[in-house]
């Protein structure tokens, strides 16, 4: 049987980074990196941005050149799915029936897009946005598409809506909540993005529940809402969140309610099994509560990958990285630092209408996060405020003319 010192499941953002970081630290053990996509490791953020827009070729999404993996003695196995984990025997099995014995197992399998409860049959024209293959399918259909319905007003849905609008499609966004970005941002930011999308011609339906998909000859023709209305559609994008990819771990006995539970070293409850990235429910020192959370970001996948690599080489350091994120829609560049969930107050800095402003999120008077739209300076200087949990007067914060670093210095 094959044996590898480190077996990494999932050749995405986090898994690829574990392998690369181990080699950078001159780790000499054997490494297998197993991914079910046919693609060499690549970055996902452009999928709903430049790649969908046709502005960036796939080659530029590759995290490393194709010859990197073999060149660093990383046994990259693409197009293979790990279907089971036997923790006693320290073994995994792939869909092809191959078994590999591991010294350490790193679970970096990410998440799969959530599907609509009413999606019983596979319909042509209905898409999710997670992999290169998903986007290639969308792009292949686009020339025949006039009307698009995007279900879900989260970042991915809104980014796709922005790109498709720019490509000249008539786009409707359907959001079940009463505002977009409800899960990740405060109301001011939601309202701002709603206005921007409407200004660009997007038809935004808030508090709207999808009831069914209408089809003809196996192809979607409309989205039916609970209020009885039908939205005609040549193409539907379902962007309603993800389900962590953890079922083989759950079968192996791990607690996986919303992601697999890990400690601050990304260790699961099974010996020699780590998990990280989108699928890992972890304790985050920047989260408002003490409950485990999952983050879906490049920052989190990458920094947790570093934590795992450090553990494997015997230099463990707990996960303590500051969360950050970005989203690009139209000419709006959003940069986020910290985690706003659980805030009890929010202060807008600058002028919302000008499209250049930040929202500072507070909890019990302390700065816990910032959403910065086209204001790089606040993003950069806000990091220190979030790290310190700075207490700053609301009125001073609201004055966009005073740099945050001046306020931080005054508060210190």
């Amino acid at each position, binding site marked *: 049987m094959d044996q590898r010192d480190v077996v990494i499941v999932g050749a995405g953002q986090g898994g690829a980074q574990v392998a690369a970081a181990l080699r950078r630290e001159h780790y000499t053990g054997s490494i297998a990196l197993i991914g079910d996509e046919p693609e060499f490791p690549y970055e996902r953020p452009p999928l709903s941005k430049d790649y969908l827009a046709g502005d960036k070729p796939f080659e530029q999404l*590759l995290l490393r050149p194709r010859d990197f993996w073999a060149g660093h003695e990383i046994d990259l196995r693409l197009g293979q799915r790990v279907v089971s984990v036997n923790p006693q025997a320290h073994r995994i099995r792939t869909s092809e029936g191959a078994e590999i014995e591991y010294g350490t197992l790193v679970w970096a399998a990410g998440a799969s897009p959530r599907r609509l409860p009413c999606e019983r049959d596979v319909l042509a024209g209905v898409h999710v946005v997670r992999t290169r293959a998903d986007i290639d399918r969308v792009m292949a259909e686009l020339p025949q598409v006039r009307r698009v319905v995007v279900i879900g007003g989260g970042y991915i849905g809104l980014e796709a809506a922005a790109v498709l609008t720019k490509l000249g499609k008539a786009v409707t966004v359907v959001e079940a909540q009463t505002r977009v970005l409800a899960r990740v941002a405060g109301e001011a930011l939601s309202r701002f993005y709603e206005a921007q999308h409407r200004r660009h011609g997007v038809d935004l339906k808030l508090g709207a529940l999808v009831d069914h998909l209408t089809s003809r000859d196996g192809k979607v023709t409309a989205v039916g809402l609970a209020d009885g209305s039908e939205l005609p559609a040549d193409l539907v994008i379902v962007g309603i969140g993800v389900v962590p990819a953890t079922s083989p771990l759950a079968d192996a006995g791990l607690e996986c309610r919303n992601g697999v539970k890990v400690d601050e070293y990304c260790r699961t409850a099974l010996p020699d099994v780590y998990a990280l990235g989108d699928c890992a429910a972890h304790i985050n020192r920047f989260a408002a509560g003490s409950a485990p959370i999952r983050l879906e970001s490049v920052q989190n996948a990458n920094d947790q990958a570093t934590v795992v690599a450090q553990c494997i080489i015997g230099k463990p350091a707990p996960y303590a990285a500051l969360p950050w994120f970005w989203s690009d829609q139209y000419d709006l*560049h959003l940069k986020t630092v910290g985690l706003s969930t659980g805030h009890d107050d929010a202060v807008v800095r600058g002028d919302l209408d000008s499209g250049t402003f930040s929202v500072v999120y507070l909890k019990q008077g302390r700065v816990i996060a910032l959403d910065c739209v086209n204001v790089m*300076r606040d993003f950069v200087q806000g990091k220190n405020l979030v790290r310190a949990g700075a207490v700053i007067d609301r009125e001073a914060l609201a004055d966009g003319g005073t740099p945050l670093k001046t306020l931080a210095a005054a508060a210190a």
Partner: protein
Amino acid sequence: MGTLYVETREGDQIDLQAEPGQSLMETMRAGGVEEILALCGGTCSCSTCHVYVEPEDFSRLGPMKDDENDLLDGSDHRGPTSRLSCQIRYREELADLHVKIAPED
């Protein structure tokens, strides 16, 4: 096409062929310069593509945008010729440019 001369943190030299239209970050990442993480894929969000440009070459690059300047301000290792390599598109006037990868923040 022109040559981009890269010096890694460890002092190794890597010579790359740069193509017009590509950013220096893209050229370096595709060329196997491992120290360039480029976490944000060139969207001016992460500064993990930070380089020091050879002083004689610096003025050839032209001015940087405010966003790049502000993001560089967040780096502990900003120097007089610091640039974010994802924000520099290669063009013919940049032939034979020399850069050094800045330390990790």
